[in-house]
Structure formats: structure tokens, C-alpha cells
């Protein structure tokens, strides 16, 4: 009798250990955002803001506008404005998922301005556009590049640049400036990340999948 129980407990322990230790990842994106970013410059040729446009996937779009009155294929302006405001209010806590660095050092960004939601009836997709000002404008001269990454650290949302015209330059003086986008090899990231990146909520999983936009100005482009 006694040995029966011993064996039973050993079996349960073995099953438990095997079942618990072989846990594959759970984290994967549920919301897909296609992004465009305009880099805005001041008159002295410094980057002073980002104008970010997010085009949500069809599922999230349908979800966000569900139940709202629709006339002539679009939603009430007031409704869309309230939606943009609410989204941006919530996103403020996460700093709009934006990470800006100049010459490797973090650059602070302020509260989002001029939020605007629009509805594309043909595609069935909602978009959100907002301006993210830099607290201190940055010059991307002499190889001191400005790097921008916009990502959800939890990777609940995946944010990827659109393939056509993902970035543009706007505003004052931006002669000699250009933006390059580096997109990570997603397949490789999925298969090579350590397990802890998926199980630890503080691991900034989304950062591994984030594209980096690099702004460089001046005659000696790299």
C-alpha cells in the first residue's frame, strides 16, 4: 500500500514537472497596426516632432467602432474625435509606445497633440494620427543619428511600417536628411529568443520585433 502511494506521487511529480517545464510561449500579437511616420523639423533643421499614423487591422477596427452610428459609409465626426481622445489618453501612460534616442541617449517626448481618427470604409479600417513632440529638438548631424522605435513592449500589439512610403520628412528645414528603416528578421526572432523573453512580462518582448527608424542629416550620410 505504502509503495503504491509512493509510486503514485512520483508519477504525478514527473507529469507535473514535464507539463510545467515544457511550456511554449503564449505571447503573440492580437492587434496589428500598420504605421507611417512623418519626421517634422523646425527652422533650424532639428527634429522637433513625429507625426505618427496608425492604421488598425480590420478586426480591431470593427471592434473599436462597433455600435457607433454610421451614415453614408462613415462614422460621426464627434464619435471619431472622442475615440481618438480616449485612445491617446490611455496611450499616454505607455508614452504612446514611442522610444526616441539621439546619439544613443534617450530623448523625452511630451503629450500627444492633434489626435485624429478617420474611417476608411472601403478597407474597413480605422486609423489614428497624432503628433508626438520632442521636449528638446534634436539635430541629427555629424553621425549623431536619431533613432525612433515605436512598439508595444508586451507585444499584444504589433506595429509595423507600411511598405509604401513608410516615412516622410516635413516642416521647416530638412535638407540633407534621410530616414532608414531597419526591420528585424521576425522568423529569426521567434526561434532564437530565450524562453524568459516570453514568460517574463517585464522582458520587453515587443522590442525584439520593433523596427528602428534612423534619421541622419548632413552631407556625410552613413
Amino acid at each position, binding site marked *: 500500500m505504502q509503495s503504491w502511494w509512493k509510486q503514485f506521487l512520483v508519477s504525478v511529480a514527473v507529469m507535473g514537472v514535464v*507539463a510545467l517545464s515544457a*511550456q511554449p*510561449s*503564449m505571447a503573440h500579437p492580437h492587434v496589428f497596426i500598420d504605421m507611417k511616420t512623418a519626421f517634422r523639423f523646425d527652422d533650424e533643421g532639428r527634429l522637433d516632432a513625429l507625426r505618427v499614423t496608425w492604421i488598425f487591422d480590420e478586426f480591431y477596427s470593427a471592434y473599436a467602432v462597433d*455600435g457607433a452610428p454610421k451614415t453614408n459609409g462613415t462614422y460621426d465626426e464627434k464619435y471619431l474625435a472622442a475615440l481618438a481622445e480616449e485612445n491617446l489618453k490611455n496611450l499616454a501612460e505607455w508614452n504612446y509606445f514611442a522610444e526616441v534616442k539621439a546619439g544613443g541617449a534617450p530623448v523625452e517626448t511630451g503629450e500627444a497633440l492633434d489626435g485624429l481618427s478617420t474611417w476608411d470604409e472601403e478597407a474597413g479600417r480605422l486609423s489614428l494620427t497624432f503628433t508626438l513632440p520632442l521636449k528638446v529638438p534634436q539635430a541629427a548631424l555629424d553621425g549623431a543619428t536619431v533613432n525612433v522605435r515605436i512598439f508595444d513592449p508586451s507585444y499584444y500589439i504589433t506595429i509595423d511600417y507600411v511598405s509604401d512610403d513608410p516615412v516622410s520628412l516635413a516642416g521647416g528645414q530638412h535638407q540633407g536628411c534621410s530616414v532608414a528603416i531597419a526591420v528585424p528578421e521576425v*522568423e529569426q526572432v521567434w526561434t532564437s529568443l530565450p524562453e524568459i523573453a516570453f*514568460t517574463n512580462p517585464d522582458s520587453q518582448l515587443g522590442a525584439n520585433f520593433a523596427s528602428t527608424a534612423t534619421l541622419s542629416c548632413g552631407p556625410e550620410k552613413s
Partner: protein
Amino acid sequence: MKRRACAALLLTLVICACGSVAWAQNTLPMPAGTSPAEAPGMFSGIMRYIMAMQQDYYRSMAGALRAVNLQGSAAAAWTLASLSFLYGIFHAAGPGHGKVVVASYILADEREVRRGILVAFLSALAQAVTAITAVGLLSLILGLTHRTTAGAVPYIERASFVLIACLGAWLIWRAVRGGHGHGHSHDHHHDHAHEHAHLPTPAELKKAKGFREMAAMILSVGLRPCSGAVLVLLFAVTQGAFLIGAASALIMSLGTAITVSVLAVLTVFSKNAALAIARRTDSPWAARIEPILMAGGGAVILLFGVLLFAGTFTGPASPLL
């Protein structure tokens, strides 16, 4: 010495069978930071890639469903059907779909490949039917919004998790009650001798009990709607195309059934191999292996049900939802 070697071999096979359960297992809500920081094995790398693939299919399904609804062409319908099927296959590798419960149940109390596959298909179908019924009722008939309907899903899931835990407890109870004194390894050899008996034999009674358990399992697993089907159905409702969504959900369940079947078959084979060796040994493990497996499988199901139930109280925090 020989006995010990046999016991070791047996244990290895049991672990193989457990491996199938482990493979099935990827929904346990784990406490943060419990895994060591090491590079993933090839296997978990592949699992992750599968997750990424299913998200691609998922994403494409939105456009395909809209195309079927707006154009109504056969080509669009074919695209949606293919995407639904493929999505189902990959989606079932992710959380849910009764993989842990089906595999543990087979480990505990099933040895026929055919029935293992039947269980996989019926529970997949049940999950699709639950999703169609839930979304149809809440969203279409009661006219609740997308958000409210999605918010109701965890309550349905909770009921499923409670039933899963009960099933686990029942298997343990049966194992402990039947585990005194005599082993069951010879019962099945008597089946054929009693084929034409008019009174139910002990073997037949056992089989009937097996069917009851199978039905209980399909019910408990099937009560949890397929998460992929719910998302597609909710989207279909917003497009005024519930029936297209329902068709997609049913095709999807064929895909999930295939994945769960593969797991079920692997589990049956591992278990039968372990039992075959057990019969040839005189190790103390041999006579006890069936009740041990039943109790062990029951314990995994019970633990799983409880953890899933607890997991429904913590959701992901996201600024957009």
C-alpha cells in the same frame, strides 16, 4: 536487478506519454520569471514560429471574409475556406482546444486510437458550435455589442474549466477506488469472450462508464469556445455576415481537430507501448500502472482546470482594449 531495469524502462515510456501531454500544454498561467534564461530548444522555437504563422492566417481571414461578403465569388469563398482550415491547424497548437485534457484523459483511461481521434474531432466540433451559439445568441439575437459579447466569453470558459477540474477529480477518485488489490490489465482480454452476452458484463459496464466519461470530457472541453472562432464570428457580425463566419468556424474546427488528433494518436501509442511492457514484467509497477496512469492523468486534468479557472481573473492590460 532485472526488475529495476524494467521499472526504469517503464518509467521512460510513461514519461514519453507525458511528453505528449507536455506538448499539448501551453496555456498554464505561469508565475512571472520562473523560467531560466536559456536559448530555446528547437522544439519551442518551432512552436513559436507556428504561433507567428497562425497570426498571419488570422489576419488574412478578415480581408477574405470581407471579400466573400462583398463580392460573393467562389474564389473568395475558397480563399476563406482554405485560410480557416490552415488557421485551425496552427491555431490548435496554441492555447486551448482541449489538448491537455484530451491527452491526459487518454493517458488516464483510453487505449483505442479510433476513439482517441473521435474524441479529438467531437471536442473540436463542440468548441466551434459553442462559439457559434454564444456569438449568435449574445451578439445577433440579444444585440449586444462586440465588446460586451467578448466580455461574456470568460464566463462561459469558467464553466468549462470547472467541469474540467471535476473530470480530473473524478478520474483520481476512480483510480484510487479501483486501485486497491487487483490490477486491471487483463480486463480487456475478456471483452471478446462476452461479446454476445445479454446481461451487461463487468467489461461492458466499464465500457459504458468509458462512454460516459468520454461524453463528460467532450462536454467540458467543448464548452470552452474556440477563441479563434469567437474572434472571426464577432468580426462577421460587424460585417453583417454571421453565416459566413459560422461556416468559417466549422471549417476551422476541422483544422483544430487534425492537430488534436495527432496528439491523441501519439498519446495512445505511447500509453499502449508502456502497458505492453508492463504486462511482460513482474515489477510492482506493472500491476499498478493503469491506476497510476489514471490517477496521474486525473491529477494533471484537475490541476489544469484549477489553474485555467484562476487564470480567467487576470487579463492582459492593453491601452487599446
